[in-house]
């Protein structure tokens, strides 16, 4: 239950981080071949697609590294 709640919380944090992205940023991940803008990234995360899961993983790893003072 706690793990599930954490996962929902992490997704919410990631969605907020993406909402706050600058409009000129695009990111390409995986074999989609196209760059994703803010709206695309939001959709991927909100719909919990494989790319969305990767985005959550990447953002979480970065936040953890920041928290641990690794970067």
């Amino acid at each position, binding site marked *: 239950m706690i793990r599930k709640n954490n996962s929902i919380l992490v997704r919410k944090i990631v969605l907020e981080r993406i909402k706050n992205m600058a409009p*000129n940023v*695009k990111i390409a991940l995986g074999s989609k*071949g196209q*760059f994703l803008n803010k709206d695309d990234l939001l959709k991927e995360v909100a719909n919990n697609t494989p790319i969305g899961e*990767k985005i959550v993983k*990447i953002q979480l790893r970065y*936040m953890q590294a920041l928290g641990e003072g690794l970067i």
Partner: protein
Amino acid sequence: MKKTFFIRPCHDDVTSYLHYYSKELLIESKKRGFKTINKEKADANALMITGIIKKNNPDFIMFNGHGNPNTICGHHDEPLIKLNKNHSLIKNKIIYSLSCSSALKLGKKVADSKSTFIGYIDEFALGMDINSQAVVHRDKRARLFLEPSNLLVKSLLKGNNVKEAVIKARNLMKKNISKLKTDPFPDAKDYLPYLFNNLVVLSLLGNDSAKL
């Protein structure tokens, strides 16, 4: 004369960036005196690649394109190298696969005491600035992602061993992360998790003292 082989598909936004950035590596390779083979766009296909590798036995191969844990792809995502199908084709060489996740399973299978596989164990991320989309070389954000990769290859061409080349690439990634952290423009922070991702997932497998 040692031989290098660059495989450069170009069929979507991402491969267009990789294609553009790898061009300078061809020039560097020729300048350094390597017999340099380039197969790009439609020529980056399985038949052509297989023939070149068998005939020329290159010492170094750089793949640019899409991939997954089991496969490295070419033009229009045609599988070029597949785990348990033809992965032995790229053994006994230095391989650099600039493609997503191919180090995870395929790379592990290729790597041994005589074979080096440098690649990514998860997604390689690429950022871009839409204000520069029409002109790839002016995209300073994309450069932060692709320069470390190019430095890795340049370092190998210069004669450094694979371990040294990967350290140089990682150091440039760290430097670019620091640069973004102090960049005053509002978009800078948004690229950071993705650049950090590339630092984490870059892997060196197999013979770590190999050099060209």
